[in-house]
C-alpha cells in the first residue's frame, strides 16, 4: 500500500468499483469446434481460455486408470505475454504445477466422475492476460468448458478472489490490489449448496475478519454464478435455434 490508496474515503477502489463489486464478466462457450468443450472468459482485463477433452480412454499408462471413477487431468499455462514482463516459462514451473493441482482437486470434487470409470477427462486452461484473479477466471472458464463438453457436474463451480483493506472486504481483486500485499483469499464455491470446493489464503488476516472476507467472496461467487448461468442458457438457446428446434 505504498502511496496508492486502495480504498478511498468515499469507498471507491482504484478502478472506481465499490468494495463488493465485481468486474465486468463476459464469457462465451464453444469457441473451438475441434475440442469437446471450450470456453473463453474475461473478468475485467483478465482473460482465460479453457478447453476440455473427454471423457476418453486413458492416455499413457493404463495403470493409472481408476476402476470406479474418471481421472481428471488439469493443466494450467499462462501465456508469455500475459503479464507486464514477458514470462520465461509458460508452463512447467512451480506456480503452474500448483495451479494445475488445485484445479484438479476442485474439479474432481465437482464432476460426477463415477459415471465414467476407467476414463480420463482433460482440462487445459490458458491465461491470455493476467490482471488479478487468475485462479478464479480459470475455474470459471473451466466450468463453462466442462458444461460445453456435456460432462455432468454436481453444480457450477464459481470462484472469486477477495481481499481485506482498511476494515473492508474487497471482492474480485485486480492486479494492483493483489500486488499491494494485503491478505488475499481465493474461494471456489458450489453455489446451490454453498459448499466450498477450494479455499486458499496466504497473508496475515485476523481471525475476526475471516468471516467477513469469506462472506464477501461467497457473495461474489454467487454473483458470478448468476452471470455464468445466463451465459449457458444463452448458448443453449443459440444452439437449439441452429438445430432448428
Amino acid at each position, binding site marked *: 500500500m505504498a502511496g496508492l490508496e486502495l480504498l478511498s474515503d468515499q469507498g471507491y477502489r482504484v478502478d472506481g468499483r465499490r468494495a463488493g463489486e465485481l468486474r465486468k464478466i463476459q464469457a462465451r462457450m464453444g469457441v473451438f469446434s475441434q475440442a469437446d468443450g471450450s470456453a473463453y472468459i474475461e473478468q475485467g482485463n483478465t482473460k482465460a481460455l479453457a478447453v476440455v477433452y473427454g471423457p476418453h480412454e486413458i492416455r499413457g499408462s493404463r495403470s493409472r486408470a*481408476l476402476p470406479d*471413477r474418471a481421472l481428471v487431468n488439469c493443466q494450467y499455462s499462462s501465456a508469455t505475454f500475459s503479464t507486464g514482463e514477458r514470462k520465461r516459462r509458460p508452463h512447467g514451473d*512451480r506456480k503452474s*504445477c*500448483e495451479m494445475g*493441482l*488445485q484445479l484438479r*482437486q*476442485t474439479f*474432481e*470434487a465437482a464432476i460426477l466422475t463415477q459415471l465414467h470409470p476407467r476414463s480420463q477427462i482433460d482440462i487445459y486452461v490458458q491465461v491470455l492476460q493476467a490482471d488479478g484473479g487468475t485462479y478464479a477466471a480459470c475455474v470459471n472458464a473451466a466450468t463453462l468448458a466442462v458444461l460445453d463438453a456435456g460432462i455432468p457436474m454436481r453444480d457450477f463451480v464459481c470462484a472469486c478472489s477477495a481481499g481485506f483493506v482498511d476494515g473492508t472486504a474487497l471482492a474480485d481483486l485486480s492486479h494492483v490490489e493483489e500486488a499491494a500485499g494485503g491478505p488475499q*483469499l481465493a474461494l471456489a464455491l*458450489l453455489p446451490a*449448496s*454453498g*459448499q*466450498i*470446493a*477450494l*479455499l*486458499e*489464503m*496466504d*497473508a*496475515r*488476516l*485476523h*481471525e*475476526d475478519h*475471516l*468471516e467477513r472476507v*469469506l*462472506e464477501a467472496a*461467497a457473495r461474489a461467487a454467487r454473483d458470478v454464478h448468476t452471470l455464468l448461468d445466463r451465459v449457458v442458457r444463452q448458448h443453449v438457446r443459440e444452439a437449439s435455434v441452429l438445430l432448428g428446434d
Partner: protein
Amino acid sequence: MADKPMIIGTSRSHLEQIMDAVLWSLGKQEFLDRFPVNLFLQNSTGQLKVWQIRVDLHLLNHDGNIIDAASIAAIVALCHFRRPDVSVQGDEVTLYTPEERDPVPLSIHHMPICVSFAFFQQGTFLLVDPSEREERVMDGLLVIAVNKHREICTIQSSGGIMLLNEQVLRCSKIAGVKVAEITELIQKALENDQKVRKEGGKFGFAESIAKQRITAFKMEEAPVDTSDVEEKAEEILAEAEPPPDVVSKPVLWTPGTAQIGEGVENSWGDLEDSEKEDEDEGGSDEAIIFKGVRMDVGMEVSNTGSQEAPIVLSDSEEEETIILEPDKNPKKIRTQTISAKQEKAPSKTAAKKRKKKRTAN
C-alpha cells in the same frame, strides 16, 4: 484421500504445496525484519549485502501430520538461531566471529504455526492433528496457519473436500486455541535452553530426550499370576529327561566337506538311479578320496580315517559317497603336502580298504 498413497514420492507435489504455504507465511509476510541494517547491508556504492538463511527439515518418523510438526520445527529453529554480529561503517563491513562478539538472534515478529484438520464422510467428521492411519482414509485436509495474535497466516484446503462456511470458521477458532498452547510450549523450551546454556549445564538433542522412557511402542501390562511358579518349575525339572549328551565330532572328508553325526537311514526305498553323491548322507564303508587332495588344515586324512567305528549307515555296496572336488586352486597349493603324507596314506588306506582314485586334474 483416494489418490494419496503413502509413498512420499508420489504425494510430494501436495506436500510441497503445503510446505510452500508454510514458508510463505514465514517469509513473505514480514515474518522477519528485513529492513534494518542487520540483515540488509548497503554500502555507499549501493551494493546490497544480504544474509542468506537456510532451513533444512529432516523428517525422522512419520506418524501423521508432518505439516504441523514441520512448521513448528522450522519456527523454533529460526527462533533459536543466532547469526554473527556485524557492524557497518560507511563502506566497511566488519563481520565478528562468535568469539569476538556474541551472535545475535534474528528479529522475529510472529510465529505462524500450522494446524491440520482431517475431514471424513463429506465433512461430517472433523479430526484435529490426524495420525498416519487417519490420514490414509481421510477425505481431505484443511491446513490453517495461525499465530498467537490470532492472525490467520494461511489457509489451504486440499483433497477436493466440500466445506461449509461455519466449518472453516470453527476450524480457525480451534486453530487459534491450539496455537496459543503450542506457542507457550515453544517459549518455555527456548527459555529453558537459554537458561541451561548460561548456567553451563547440558543441552542439545541428547538432553532433550527423556531418559528411562520407551518412546516407541508401548504395550499394556497384562497381569500374570506368579504365585506358584517355583513349584511348577521344580516339577517340570524333575520329570524331564536329561538332555542327551551330544559331542560333535566332525569328520572331515576333504577341505570344505565335513560330516557331523550320523544321518538317518534312507527310507525312500530303492533308489537305484538316484544320485549317490550326497555328501551329507554319510557314507558307506567306502569313501573315495581323491589323490592329491588332502586336508592341510590341521587334520590329516589319517586322523579321520582312524576314527573308531567308521560310520556305516547302510550295508549296501552300491552306495558310494563321492566327494566332489573343491576348487582347483587349493589343490595346487597343497601339492607339497602330498609327498609328505603319501607314505602314511597308503598304509592306512590299505587297512581301511579305501579306494583311491586319481583326480582328473
